[in-house]
């Protein structure tokens, strides 16, 4: 059974990737999961400098999901390279670095630092954080902005460049196309949906930043749709995410066109999710006689079903 998948020049042993911001810097989880068994680990979003992020409360639970506005608290790229990368390498982790910037120059600068470091497998370009004004969303919500920042970073680094797209746009596939045109090696989607919850007893926000990003199973049906839309428009690999909780969900994203998948929120619910999803994928492959997992990529057959019985429950 071959679970490996290829993203540009990278080969991952399996398609399961820890989503940015949901796995610390990876090392936090070394006692729970052998980092080398994951397809890859994406770091928390990093700017050039350290950031404190937003004051707490930073998360609030919602139906089948959560809103977060961490505000990209982070140690900055220099400390990351010095303090975290060597250990990640020692653990055999394939490390993607989630790169943020307030300006185009900052994106380029952070990527240059990472290009010179040892142990970075790819750059995930965060142009989609909904929680902070200067978090790149001004790039991520404009086609020309996306094109510009991806082009600039493309020129600045030999590493694979993977823009992470926001779902808060009318036509996400056009952003995937702009990324492809600008030389991206892959795209990852979706980042969180801009959302808000009010404490009706106090009439105040539930999180300090008022608005935050919605993640978790609630958003999965929208995320799957977006992956499928992108798959039909671009040729570069897609890394899909949004509410994946188990093997079924991961396979759903792959069928919709994802080459690899990321798990975020579910890692909070169950940090042992990784082994369970891998086992579930293997079970699926056995049952369906799938030799190479990559054969499932985009294998969704959209010709309409007729009749009375969809498998309703399996989508819950």
């Amino acid at each position, binding site marked *: 059974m071959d679970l490996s998948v290829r993203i540009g020049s990278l080969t991952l042993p399996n398609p399961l990737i820890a989503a940015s911001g949901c796995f610390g810097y990876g090392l936090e989880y070394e006692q729970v999961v052998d980092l080398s068994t994951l397809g890859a680990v994406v770091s928390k979003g990093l700017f050039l400098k350290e950031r404190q992020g937003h004051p707490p409360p930073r998360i609030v*639970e919602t139906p089948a999901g959560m809103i977060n506005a961490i505000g990209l608290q982070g140690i900055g790229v220099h400390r990351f390279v010095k303090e975290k990368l060597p250990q990640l390498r020692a653990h055999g982790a394939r490390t993607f670095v989630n790169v943020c910037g307030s300006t185009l120059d900052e994106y380029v600068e952070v990527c240059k630092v990472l290009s010179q470091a040892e142990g970075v497998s790819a750059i995930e370009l965060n142009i989609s954080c909904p929680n902070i004004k200067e978090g790149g969303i001004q790039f991520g919500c404009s086609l020309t902005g996306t094109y510009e920042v991806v082009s600039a970073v493309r020129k600045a680094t030999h590493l694979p460049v993977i823009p992470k797209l926001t779902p808060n746009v009318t036509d996400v596939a056009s952003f995937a196309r702009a990324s492809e045109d600008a030389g991206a090696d892959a795209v990852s989607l979706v980042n969180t949906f801009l959302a808000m919850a009010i404490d009706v007893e106090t009439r105040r926000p539930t999180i300090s930043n008022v608005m935050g990003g919605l993640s978790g199973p609630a958003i999965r049906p929208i995320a799957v749709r977006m992956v499928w839309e992108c798959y039909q428009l671009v040729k570069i690999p897609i890394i899909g995410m949004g509410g994946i909780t188990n093997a079924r969900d991961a396979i759903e994203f792959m069928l919709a066109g994802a080459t690899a998948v990321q798990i975020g929120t579910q890692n909070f619910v169950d940090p042992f999710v990784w082994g369970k999803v891998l086992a579930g994928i293997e079970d699926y492959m056995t049952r369906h006689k799938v030799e190479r997992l990559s054969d499932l990529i985009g294998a969704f057959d959209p010709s309409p079903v007729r009749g009375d019985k969809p498998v309703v429950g399996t989508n819950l």
Partner: protein
Amino acid sequence: MANLRLSREYSVLSLAAPEVGARTRPGQFVMLKPAGVTDPLLRRPFSVFEILRDSRGAITGVSILNKRAGRSTKRLYDLEVGDVVSCLGPLGLPFTPVSAPRQAWMVAGGVGLAPFATLAESLAASGTPTTLFYGARTSDELFYLDFFGRLGVTLVLATEDGGRGVKGRVTAPLEQALKSVGADGAMVYACGPEPMLEAVAKLAARYHQPSQVSVERVMGCGLGGCYSCVVPVKHGNEEANLVRSCISGPVFDGAELVWD
């Protein structure tokens, strides 16, 4: 799994989790979630209350002092024997115990009693003179007094309605005690509502005693993954940093916490 209702709000939930029990040190917590339940989605943090043992003394699990506050805690309150709870832990940094001649003063507000059962046992084992300052709304909500009594812990009680012990806040008798603390000094341990923690930390500082404070933050993961649980912490003259209370806490040096 057993679930002993102490009142209409409090229950003690016993979990068969020998490994968690064996590894837990006083002040650590676990992240719980009833098995198979998808709503609420996230786990919730709970201090380990007791380490459970069978008749031969072998560790069989842990108990949780659960107070109904919202959806998950209500669900846990309603659980019956046989229901399965998924338990992740032990997590976080424990209290640092002190030993005689220094005294140990534990200050608990309401459900903040939880981490002190194991701490009291450990202090009793080392012969440290220990006092529990324990405040609750009413005398009905003062639990496990016998337990602490049997360990030789001195009890100083306070209730808001004056039904038992001092009427009012538990910080009043604490301040009294701090005023006349002996030369060997006391380590002040605190767990309870945020205003109480702040008051205790500041009182301890005012009377030049060290304190260890267990803070409570909304926790998404309990493992350092999400950065939801941060508290501002200041070492000496450095600038305050937002520090994850799940892995760098929940117990902090009261003097280093920044209260805003």
